């Protein structure tokens, strides 16, 4: 089967790079890659996002040794972990050994350890997902985060992913495991140094134990960046708490899949997103929240402003299993369109098989409030300034959901700077 590469297989451009990996389950995943087609407009999950062109060019293996200039440190204490083209760079990262009960390291070095063997590959089912299968077939490297029972990580972990020039295929693979009552906060930042032809295809699996709390803040500002496709598979146990806020400011083609299983009673998931798109940035957020057991809650809020030739896509699904009674699920997606060539496609879905539930979703697509603009202008505020103020206000409620004040302030300043350019 491995020898069946034909000139007509549209995946031929990536297949050679996926052969021979020693990561767990790689061979099976490779077979999966061979079997799956490249998603097209008739593939429901990729209806609005074209990926065919990503397979039209050959890729090189990722270059882990590239020289990079790191951005300034965040203005508050963090543990910094750096990956260059998906490869862990100890030389650029902070000292990672310190706190007791905490492991932060290159995942590659831990593949044979108990907790990794137990959880690796369990939350990123390949099914119809070509990109997840590609990642599983040959991960570049990634981060392991293991927080043992009852440990609170003392400061946020700041992971920086940098993609450098060259047509590289970069496949980061993370595994985060929080045992009972553990707490951690991770900031994940994606940067690019002139890498418009690369493909970054990440998979992250997160296991949130009983009563554990994991917050992830993902920031994507890859100016002149690669195609960035990511899948987050999450399982939250009883009374566990998982939150992710995804902020997309720049990129060429961005696709974020967040797939959460609420697997124990009273588990909670909070998914937030901000996307400010211009140029020809295409950003597609897909979320799936599975309410598998009773008494779980989820809350989802995605907001975007789309300008220029940008395209914003949102597809959120809340699935309530039979007997998952007393589920509370809320989902909202609001969009503002600026510019004649901007587009928004949104599809908030509910699929419910239990009756004692309160589920709702709402979505809007519109423009900046004309009356608000008029009010501000009548008070001497210039039109440009008034637009910025309204846009800023539009984003406020998503930002307010970020508990970490330091990060929120920093993010707000990045968002305001981006708003200046819309």
């Amino acid at each position, binding site marked *: 089967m491995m020898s069946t590469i034909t000139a007509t297989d549209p995946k031929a451009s990536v297949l050679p790079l996926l052969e021979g990996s020693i990561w767990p389950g790689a061979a099976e995943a490779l077979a999966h890659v061979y079997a799956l087609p490249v998603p097209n407009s008739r593939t429901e999950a990729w209806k609005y996002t074209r990926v065919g062109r990503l397979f039209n060019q050959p890729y090189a293996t990722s270059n882990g040794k590239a020289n990079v200039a790191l951005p300034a440190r965040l203005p508050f204490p963090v543990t910094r972990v750096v990956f260059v083209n998906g490869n862990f760079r100890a030389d650029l990262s902070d000292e990672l050994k310190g706190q007791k009960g905490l492991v932060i390291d290159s995942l590659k070095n831990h593949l044979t350890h108990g907790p990794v063997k137990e959880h690796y590959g369990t939350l990123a089912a390949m099914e119809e997902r070509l990109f997840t299968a590609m990642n599983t077939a040959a991960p570049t490297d990634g981060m392991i985060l293991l927080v043992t029972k009852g440990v609170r990580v003392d400061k946020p972990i700041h992971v920086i992913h940098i993609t450098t020039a060259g047509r590289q295929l970069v496949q980061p693979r993370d595994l985060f495991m929080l045992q009972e009552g553990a707490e951690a906060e991770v900031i994940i930042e994606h940067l690019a140094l002139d890498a418009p032809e690369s493909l970054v295809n990440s998979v992250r699996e997160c296991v949130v134990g009983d009563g554990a709390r994991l917050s992830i803040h993902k920031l994507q500002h890859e100016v002149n960046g690669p195609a960035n496709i990511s899948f987050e598979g999450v399982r939250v146990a009883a009374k566990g708490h998982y939150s992710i806020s995804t902020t997309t400011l720049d990129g060429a083609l961005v696709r974020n899949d967040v797939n959460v299983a609420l697997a124990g009673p009273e588990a909670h998931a909070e998914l937030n997103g901000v996307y400010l798109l211009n140029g020809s940035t295409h950003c597609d957020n897909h979320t799936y929240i599975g309410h598998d057991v009773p008494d779980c809650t989820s809350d989802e809020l995605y907001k975007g402003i789309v300008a220029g030739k940008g395209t914003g896509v949102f597809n959120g699904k809340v699935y309530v299993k039979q007997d998952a009674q007393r589920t509370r699920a809320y989902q909202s997606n609001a969009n503002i369109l600026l510019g004649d060539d901007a*587009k*928004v496609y949104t*599809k908030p879905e509910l699929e*419910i098989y*239990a009756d004692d539930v309160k*589920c709702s979703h709402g979505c*809007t697509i519109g423009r900046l409030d004309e009356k608000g603009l008029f009010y501000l202008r009548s008070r001497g505020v210039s039109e440009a300034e008034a637009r910025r103020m309204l846009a800023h206000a539009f984003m406020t409620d998503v930002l307010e959901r970020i508990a970490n004040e330091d990060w929120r302030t920093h993010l707000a300043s990045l968002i305001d700077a981006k708003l200046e350019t819309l």
Partner: protein
Amino acid sequence: MSQDTDDILREVTEKEYAYGFVTNIESELAPKGLNEDTVRFISTKKNEPEWLLEWRLEAFRGWLKMTEPTWGLLKYPAIDFQDAHYYSAPKKKPQLNSLDEADPELIKTFEKLGISLQEQKRLAGVAVDVVFDSVSVKTTFQATLKEKGIIFCSFSDAVKEHPDLVRKYLGTVVPRTDNFYAALNSAVFSDGSFCYIPPGVRCPMELSTYFRINSANTGQFERTLLIADEGSYESYLEGCTAPMRDENQLHAAVVELVAMKDAELKYSTVQNWYPGDENGVGGVYNFVTKRGLCLGERSKISWTQVETGSAITWKYPSCVLKGDHSIGEFYSVALTKHHQQADTGTKMTHIGKGTKSTIVSKGISAGRSNNSYRGLVKIGRGAKGARNFSQCDSLLLGDRCGAHTFPYIESENPSAMVEHEATTSKIGEDQIFYLNQRGIETEKAVSLIVNGYCKEVLNQLPMEFAVEAQKLLAVSLEGSVG
């Protein structure tokens, strides 16, 4: 929920279909199966002109190349399209001047359904074009309508008497290649209603067709074409009931509406095909394509549907808002129980400037049924200042049913405003308690709440129809919860 409520819900689920009787009228059947000869047979039987036969055959050839859509959240065994009769007509074809001459059996059937023609006639204001199986039996009020220049007749008569109009509009809203079932209908459609309202005429009465599937193993494929010319107004009612049959019956109708400048068309449906028994045996498979085209400026098309029947419902009455400032509306109540599955909703395609659409969908699921809303709101690049509001609510009665919402919203114009909201919940125990406290028993309380929940949609129905729809909801939920 309390034991009481549970009991009532169980009764609801076990309520048998009240309209399940068979009228024994000799019918003339086409042989089972589907091929070009079947299409020719139908066309010959109906004395159709050559162009229509060609039109059908082309649709049939297109259909052969198509595959059944599978994207709906529906589970059913594969349909054998060769195992059905594609034409069934009452043999004693009545040529009647008054209702007294009609087949007494037939009259009885309608009486059981509660729409006796006399009754309807007496109530006045409703002209009925009765489609019994495939052939239109009797059209009333022709004369009154004729005075105003309104053409309201069966589709076959329209083909004979107004071929130019039929030829001009047939397939312009739902092309033969639109989808699998529309293609099938185009090839084998039996009869249906045709209506043309001339410019500036306000149709003085509500027009109505009562559809009914009777013979065993007949698929029913009616085709409706309504045209409202400039500045005219028309309200059209469609009601459907089918008798109890164990085998699944196929129903694939096509409805095309065209509204010219300043015209308004209102299309109301009460659909109560046989839903199958409580074990999910039997029932009608309802695959319907309904679409309205707002062709002229300021035209308006409004769909209202109350769907309580069919084992499978696959139906998306849609509006194409082409004329500037045209308006599309969709109001729907869908109730499913036993093993019924409904995948229904609408598509609003905004093309013209300042176009507006409103969607209100109320789903009620009970038993082991599944009820999905699936809708598309598409704002095209040129639809400057377009506006849409959608509200999709689901009510769950029982813990073995499902309620789902799949809205697609696409906007390509920055001046458009689109809002969508959906909620899913069950009837609150506090609501029931409140009503119990005031001496209203649980059964009535649930009925009240469901009625209030659907009110927004029922209010859109013409009065006589609203009464019938309310009755139908009550009967469907009967134990009756209501």
